[in-house]
């Protein structure tokens, strides 16, 4: 046993691994990438809180298997940080190749954190054949992730926007700004809430309020300065101090995520819900989870929109396979299916004008099922603040409200 202990310590802490330089895919030759990708298994780590998206991922997996002979396993996450933690743990344990994450659905602080630590493979995105269709000019959000330039380290695959929804038959006049939301809560105590701030939708709500209340929005595009943080966020805390006493459960508990928020609306516990998926309400109506009298809307003055990306960790086992999957998800067919409101309703990242007329027609699915006002981004999309704002706001929120 005495001799065992040093061995064990060595096992746990022998953390200067013999790093063997892994043969990186030769990026220039796509045919070569395809050839190497065949037969690989891609462990795609993706948030799994929405059944419609899970089914879309399952469909994509089937297609990729059929076309390219790549097996895709959806590793279901309840929070993307789980996969980030896994990559960091592997780095800690010295596993610089043969990692367990091949492809990760990511954006915002998680991307910033991995890129900053050099834990991402790349740049690789401009090598994808389908990336030429991406609307990098018209949709700048797909090249700057929470203001951080993606620099080819992540491939865009979806655009999301904060959309509110409510039951017309119960709430004839929903509030159309966050300020109006506060007034609504005061006249209807207990009927308004937002998700836990450690969930991205909850954090987004805080950022939405901050954007509406801050004097000069351009400061949010830079990392917060310690000196200014308290002053700039003071209106947000004042807003929440007023909201919480009249919020659902008196602001003492918060739904875990968008799905729970939706369930609360379905159970009539609250009057207003919101989501990062513009088609959330219509999908739920189709499934029978929400009554047909639910409608969606975007706040006057716009709401936060951001792009969702796919990244490949530095130690991924199937880098080529992951690239092929990302390329398939950028294809007109995959993007059109994603935008179909009866499938998912996620907005495309492609520029329709760059597509052939045949491909363009794929996007023209008749939009009869949806009760969502079609969202055109230019009209209402607000850019995400710098990623540090999100982490700082969450920290400050926890300091203020979690310890009481």
């Amino acid at each position, binding site marked *: 046993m005495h001799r065992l202990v040093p061995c*064990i*310590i060595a*096992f*746990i*802490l022998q*953390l*200067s691994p013999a790093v063997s330089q892994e043969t990186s895919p030769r990026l220039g030759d796509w045919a070569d990438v395809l050839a190497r990708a065949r037969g690989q298994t891609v*462990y795609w780590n993706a948030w*799994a*809180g929405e*059944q419609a998206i*899970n*089914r879309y991922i*399952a469909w994509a997996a089937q297609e990729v298997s059929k076309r390219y002979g790549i097996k895709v396993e959806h*590793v*279901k*996450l*309840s929070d993307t*940080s789980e*996969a*980030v*933690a896994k990559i*960091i*743990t*592997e*780095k*800690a*344990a*010295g*596993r610089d190749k*043969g990692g*367990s994450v091949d492809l990760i659905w990511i954006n915002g*602080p998680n991307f910033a*954190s991995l890129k900053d630590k050099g834990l991402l493979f790349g740049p690789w995105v401009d090598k994808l054949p389908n990336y030429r269709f991406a609307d990098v000019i018209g949709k700048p959000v797909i090249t700057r992730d929470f203001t951080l330039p993606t620099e080819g380290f992540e491939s865009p695959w979806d655009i999301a926007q904060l959309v509110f929804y409510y039951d017309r038959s119960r709430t004839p006049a929903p509030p159309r700004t966050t300020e109006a939301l506060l007034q609504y809560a005061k006249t209807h*105590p207990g009927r308004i809430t937002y998700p*836990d701030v450690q969930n991205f939708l909850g954090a987004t709500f805080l950022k939405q309020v901050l954007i509406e209340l801050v004097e000069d929005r351009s400061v949010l595009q830079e990392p917060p300065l310690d000196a200014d943080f308290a002053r700039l966020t003071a209106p947000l805390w004042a807003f929440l101090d007023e909201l919480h006493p009249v919020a659902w*459960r*008196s602001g*003492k*508990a*918060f*739904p*875990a*995520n*968008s*799905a*729970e*928020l939706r*369930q*609360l609306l*379905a*159970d*009539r*516990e609250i009057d207003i819900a919101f989501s990062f998926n513009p088609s959330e309400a219509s999908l739920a109506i189709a499934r029978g*989870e929400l009554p047909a009298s639910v409608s969606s809307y975007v706040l006057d003055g716009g709401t936060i929109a951001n792009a969702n990306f796919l990244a490949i960790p530095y130690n991924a086992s199937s880098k080529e396979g992951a690239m092929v999957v990302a390329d398939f998800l950028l294809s007109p067919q995959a993007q059109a299916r994603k935008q179909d409101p009866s499938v998912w309703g996620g907005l495309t990242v492609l520029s329709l004008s760059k597509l052939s007329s045949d491909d363009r027609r794929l996007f023209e699915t008749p939009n009869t099922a949806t009760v969502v006002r079609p969202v055109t981004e230019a009209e209402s999309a607000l850019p995400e603040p710098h990623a540090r704002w999100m*982490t700082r706001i969450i920290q400050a929120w*926890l*300091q203020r409200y*979690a*310890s009481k």
Partner: protein
Amino acid sequence: MNPSKGEGLWLRLVPAVVFIILVVPTACGLLGVFLPAFGYFPALGGSEFTLQHWRLLLEAPGLFRSVILTIWIGLASTVLSLATVVLLFAQFHDTRVFWLVRRTLSPLLSIPHVAIAIGLALVIAPSGLLFRFVAQFLPDLDVPPDLLIVHDRMGLSLIGALVLKEAPFLFLMSLAALPQINPTQSLATARTIGYTPTIAWIKVVLPRLYRQIRLPVLAVLAYSLSVVDAALIVGPTTPPPLGVAVFKWMSEPELRDRFIAAAGAVLVLCITLFGTTLWIGLERLLILLGRRWLELGSRKQGAKAISIAAYAVGILLLTFILLSAGAILLWAFAGNWPYPNVAPDFLTAATWNTNSRQFLWPLFNALIIGGAASLLALAFTVSLLERDVHRRTNTQDWMRNLLYVPLIVPQIAFLPGMQILLIALHLDSNIYSVIAAHLVFVLPYVYLSLSDPWAHFDDRYRQTAMAMGATPRRALFRVRLPMLLAALLTAAAVGFAVSVGQYLPTLLVGAGRVPTVTTEAVALASGGDRRLVAVLAMLQSLLPLGAFLVAVFVPLIVFRNRRGVRTT
């Protein structure tokens, strides 16, 4: 004592192997948590010892409240579970009701914590079954009341879920321990000198019984002090109990949080030690007070209150169990079911059909892992026990204490360290490692479950077989094991149930790549599609229930023409 001749190499090695299985992962895991807690973790840039991470931990928002909550939840749920068991035994021992309670609680033991928490939430939430019933009579309740019940800040619903699970566990542990202390005689004596049956049981049987179930009680305490899975579903959120907080730090993208998580894990361990010490202090106090009460010699005093409490507890327990099971069943097949209707508009298998891809693979994994872990555990247990037979020794006492190591050291305190070790050895994220990790927690239960029937086996059967020329191996495989079939299957079923319920080991060792119905249920429970969550909870409960059914019916069929063989 010399090993008897003919003892194979395997039997000689088996205690060492079991020791390694039980202690080494725990010890390595603890080491892998302790060092980073004090700053030493070169790969993450921590090369020297420091207390800085403890400072950050102590400054974390809500930490103080987390700690207090943790201790409160741990002590309250253990006290309530134990009190429930004592009340039920005192009031109902040797009655027909007792037989009924025994029959209803046994299957409940097999329902995992996660399913119980999910079921309870479906019942007590403001939009849950209870308020839907009430709303039928109170028209004002056409919208659910704005009450914080699930995730309440005092942790009451978490305590409720823990008691629903732990009370049946302690109940069955007590049932198993009772024969060893021969209660019938002393009860009869007490009653002849005028004690009512209830008081007699508490004064004469309980003190001796408690000594027998003390380790299970401490295991319940340790579990409740560090619970993660059920706490994620119904526990407080702002702030959460410490186990959940550590779990969340572990999955933060900031490296610094890993050190805080490690310090937090050590704090969980300290709290478990503190809680256990507190518990032992409470025991002393109770012994002191109890002795005075005993010496007073009152025959009837308090019997009335105890029986009222016992009935109340029994009815409450049964009601919530039935309602929870009913809620899971209804939601799993519910079509549209708006509040405040007490029943769905229609029943449908749509959730099962559209999501089969979501649960078939996790179901299959759970089946394979549970089957493999429980069979391995059974093999080890039989080897250990057979070794005792060979050597005519009794290693049971030290083995019993050893077995409780993985049950008493909180999972959240050593699994993070074990995870890093496995990744460093490239042993993570495959099903074999998950099976091995489950074995650590399954083996103790299988051993505890099998050792008593084994000890009570009449050794003369074996001696007869040997006298007729059978080798020890043949006597084991042809006589003892077949005759103990019922006990073997029950032990395997217990092990299977334990395996199916494991959340943290599956998630951490499997790196998310080996999903089971349990990990999927927890991932979806907080706000996922309620119907799918119900389906997962149902599958999660059906798996162990199926195993117990096998354990009950296979012996009945195999021994249908062997009247003398015990089949239960």
